[in-house]
Each structure stands twice: as structure tokens, then as C-alpha cells.
């Protein structure tokens, strides 16, 4: 196998991992963000802190604990092995699960912010027009916070592409299975293959730059302005009006 096809394999593995991770993150992150945005008890702070942990922890710490949890000696790893018949540690599935934890704040935080800023006004108006909770979510909340969903998905994807520490701990560097771009780059550097390393590194830089620019461009041109205040004359009692456009996800 040539170096080139090795890198291509790593690229495919990376895209597959990031794509699947993003898919699951949106599935898990959206209800979690909604729950956090609506939650009023003190426990909220604790859950927020857990969600934000991957932002501050060295990825190797997270990777270390995941490695232990995924090993057949412990319950999560055992359960996995019983259900699927395969070992979880050093598998592609382990990469995806690890990435979900690692990129969770990048999805949850912008969505939570958007849901909080959207407030309850439009939802109440929807309920008064006979729209049930799911109906309200898909016909009101989702279109009004679409930009935040795009931000969340893009950040989740991009952050997963860029991960190294977690993958290093739980991946195992199996070509076509768990060998991702960031690891491939590290291997090139270790082997003094600076040309390949340059090619990979610069491609990652450019791709990330393009993706992030696209997100910021999208956020600077909001799809709509939920703030109708400028059209609402002499309103001194407008405490119910929503604040600013809910589309600027927190980009950490």
C-alpha cells in the first residue's frame, strides 16, 4: 500500500467518524440543549459543567477514562461485547463514542444559547394556535434557530476532525479502521516524512479555515430578525419581546 492511499484511507476514516459523530451529536445534543435551556433548578449548573468539561480537560484525560470504560474488564465495555460480540476499545465505534463526548459542548452550547434567546413567546403563540410541542419544535423553533443548528453541526464536525488526544488513547491506529488524519500526520512527522506531513497539515488548515469562514459568514447574515422591536412604536412595556437574534452560537 502506498503512502498516498494510506492517507486517503485516513481521510475516509476521519470523514466517516466526523459525519457519524455529528449525526449522533445532533440527535443527543438537541434534546439535551433544550432541556438545559428550559431547566430552572440548581442542578442545571452541574449538568452544564459536565457538558463543558471537554473544553478544559486535556483530551488525554478523557481518552484515558474512556479507554478504561471501553475495556472488557468494565461494565460499558462488557455490555458492548455481549451485545455486538466485538471488543469496544480500539474499534471504530469507540472512536465515534469518544468523539461524541469530546465534541458535545460544541453542539450543546450554541443550541442551548439559541433556545434560551428564542424564549417562550413564539411557543406560547404557537400553542394558542393549537400547535402541540413537537409541531412547535419543528415548525417554529427549528426554522427560527436554523443558523444555530448549522453552527452546532459544523463545529461538532470540525472539532471531531481535529481531535488527536482522545483518538490516540482509544483508537489504536489501525489503517482503514481507526487511523485518522491527525494520527497520520503525527506518524509522518515521526518518520521524518515532512513532505507528506506538509500536504496533510496544509490541507487540514485550509479545509478548517473554509469551514469556519462559512459558519461565520452564515452567522453574520441572519436568516431573519426575530426582533420586531424597531417596528413596534412607543413600547415601554415590551418585557416579553425577545432579545437579540438567537443565531449567534457560542463559539469557544
Amino acid at each position, binding site marked *: 500500500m502506498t503512502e498516498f492511499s494510506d492517507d486517503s484511507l485516513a481521510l475516509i476514516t476521519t470523514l466517516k467518524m466526523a459525519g457519524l459523530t455529528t449525526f449522533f451529536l445532533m440527535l443527543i445534543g438537541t434534546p439535551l440543549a433544550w432541556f438545559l435551556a428550559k431547566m430552572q433548578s440548581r442542578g442545571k449548573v452541574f449538568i452544564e459543567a459536565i457538558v463543558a468539561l471537554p473544553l478544559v480537560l486535556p483530551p488525554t484525560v478523557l481518552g484515558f477514562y474512556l479507554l478504561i470504560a471501553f475495556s472488557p474488564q468494565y461494565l460499558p465495555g462488557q455490555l458492548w461485547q455481549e451485545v455486538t460480540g466485538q471488543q469496544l476499545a480500539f474499534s471504530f465505534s469507540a472512536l465515534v463514542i469518544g468523539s461524541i463526548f469530546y465534541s458535545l459542548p460544541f453542539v450543546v452550547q450554541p443550541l442551548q444559547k439559541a433556545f434560551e434567546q428564542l424564549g417562550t413567546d413564539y411557543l406560547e403563540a404557537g400553542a*394558542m394556535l*393549537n*400547535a402541540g410541542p413537537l409541531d412547535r419544535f419543528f415548525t417554529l423553533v427549528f426554522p427560527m434557530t436554523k443558523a444555530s443548528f448549522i453552527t452546532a453541526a459544523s463545529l461538532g464536525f470540525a472539532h471531531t476532525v481535529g481531535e488527536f488526544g482522545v483518538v490516540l488513547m482509544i483508537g489504536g491506529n489501525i489503517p482503514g479502521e481507526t487511523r485518522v488524519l491527525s494520527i497520520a500526520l503525527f506518524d509522518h512527522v515521526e518518520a521524518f516524512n515532512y513532505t507528506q506531513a506538509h500536504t496533510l497539515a496544509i490541507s487540514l488548515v485550509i479545509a478548517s479555515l473554509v469551514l469556519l469562514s462559512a459558519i461565520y459568514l452564515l452567522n453574520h447574515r441572519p436568516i431573519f*430578525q426575530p426582533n*420586531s422591536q424597531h417596528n413596534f*412604536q412607543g413600547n415601554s*412595556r415590551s418585557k416579553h419581546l425577545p432579545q437579540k437574534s438567537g443565531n449567534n452560537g457560542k463559539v469557544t
Partner: protein
Amino acid sequence: MMNKLTLNIESDCNQFSLAIDQCLSFSGIVGVFGHSGSGKTTLLRAIAGLNQQTTGSIVFNDHVLLDSNNNKNLKAENRNISMVFQEPRLFPHLNVEQNLDFAIKRCQHSQLNKKDIIELTNITSMLDKNITQLSGGEQQKVALARAILSEPKLLLLDEPLSALDRKSKKELISLLKTVNKKLNLPMIYVSHSSEELQQLAEQLVVIEQGKIIEVGNVHQVFHQLNTTQLIKQQTSLAVTVEEINERHGLVKLGLAEQHIFMSLAQLADDDKELITQLSSLRCYIFASDISITTIEPTNSSIVNQLEAKIIKINQDRSQVLITLQCQQQEFFASISSYSLDKLALSINQNVYIQFKASAVRTLTI
């Protein structure tokens, strides 16, 4: 058709608890009057189902909305009640027509014709516009049309005009009257503006500190409130329009068998046109604009002079509120205690009340 709303509810607010036990039978618009923080919006939200902490029971025309003893609490979307809020809350990602369609799609037994309602609310020219292109008054008209098109059994209005300028206010008030009459849609209208309620409501409920303190015919309730600090003391009148005297800028209004004159000068130009088509009108006269004389005034520039009998005298420090009976109508005059002593006024005394044509006020035509 008479509608019946039975309320027996309690709900905790920040400063007080709402406790209402009242049965309302009504056909037209019920007004709920109270100052900011009196609990009137909380009451409306409890009826709508937007305040899920409410306990007790709410029954509207045999339809049980809330019965916490039997663990029944219908969700807002299942109550068949619609609401127009203080701010229009039109969905910004949809244009005007799509906002209307949102309501129509979720209406179970659609009977109204969309086009009719669009024409009735006068929003035909706005259909393809974005929400942000509309003025506050236009937005509120669309919100009203949207609420009507969801075909509720009861329409709640939470200070829908408080953020609008006077012109839009007048336009929407006459629109609400028309809607109420043409569609026979029962409405509860909450406001802290006595002026709006005087125009719209048939019955008035007054709330203070989460409790109902007055209920009844709108004119009578306003007269009851004259002895409280809640409104500016006034006489609330329902009159018929009899004659327009354009040369003198006066409208002759019928009040039982008597007449009073209103000045046309206070009206906007288009209202002057409109008043000729009207048969009846609601207006009010502030108690401070009515004066009392014990002998018949003959050479006065004040056009309205009526004979009346004093039936009540309320003295509050230096200010005195005199209630007078003039045939079937009560009038309220506020005078100083100095004048009370000087004229030696007493109950059952016959006097004359006087007020200028410009003292007869009305919010809408």
C-alpha cells in the same frame, strides 16, 4: 348566544396570589380592568392554559378546561382558545399569509373563509409582505386575523393596543367591535386603559391584588370606580347620534329623552365622515369638566345644561364628588369643598349641571 365562564382558581404570582371565584355570563366582550401587576394577565393566562401552576376549576360553556380535583388540566393547544398578546408575536420566518396559514392548518373544524377574514381585518395588501415590513398596528391586525382563523371558541386579548399610537388604536377598536358582532366570537379583553374598555366592553371585571373587586355593566362599574383611586372620575355614556351640525361643529347626541352636544373639533377628519354613518356612540365626561349651578343658567356659552337631582355627596378632603340623577342617567361632578359650602348643596336638591361640548370625549368613532 350567551356564553358562560365559570372560574374558581388560585395561582401564585410573585407579589400576590390570584384568587378568583366568579361566574360570568356574557354575549359580547368582557373587559378586565386593573393596574399593572393587579393579576389580570395572570388570570388571562390561566384561562388560556399558559399558566400550568393554576389550581381550581375553569369551565367554559360546559367544556371543562381545568379541574385540578380530578387531575384534569387541558394543555393550551387543546383548549380551543386563542389569544392576541400585547406584542403581535407573528412568526418572523413566515410572511403574513403563511402566518395565517399556520392557524388554518391547525384548525380542526374549519368553517370560516380565509378570504372573508382577510377582507374583514383589512389586510389584503399585506399578504405577501414580511413581518418586519409592517407597522405595529398592521402587525396587530394580522395577529388578530391569525387568531380568528384558528376559530377559537373564546378569544383572549391581553392589552393588544397598549403599544400602538392613537390612530391604530381607534382602527383596531372598531375592527374588534365588527369582529365581535359579525362572527359572534366571545372575547375577554384585558387592559389597564379605561378608555379602551369603555369603548369595547359590555361587562367589566375589575381586579386588584389578584381579586375581583367589581363586576357588572361597563358604565355602572366605571361609576362605581369613581369613588376609588383606580380611574379618573367620569360619567360613562352610551348615546345615539341624532344630528350633525357642521356649521357649528357640533354633534347632537340623544340620551334617553334629553340631548347633549359634542364638539366635532376633537375628531380627526376621517372620523367626522364616519360619525355621520353611526347610530350609537360611547363617550365619557370627566367629573372635573362638569360644574353645578343652583339657578338655571340662561346666558352661558356652555352648551350642555341639564337639570338634575343630587343623590350622593362624597367628600374626600378638599375634593367633593357629587352624584346626580338626570332622568335615567347618573352624572358625576367633582367640585371643591369651598363650592359645596358656598352653594350649600344637599342630597335631593335640584340643580343644573353644565359642561362644554368639548368635554364630551370619545376614543373612537
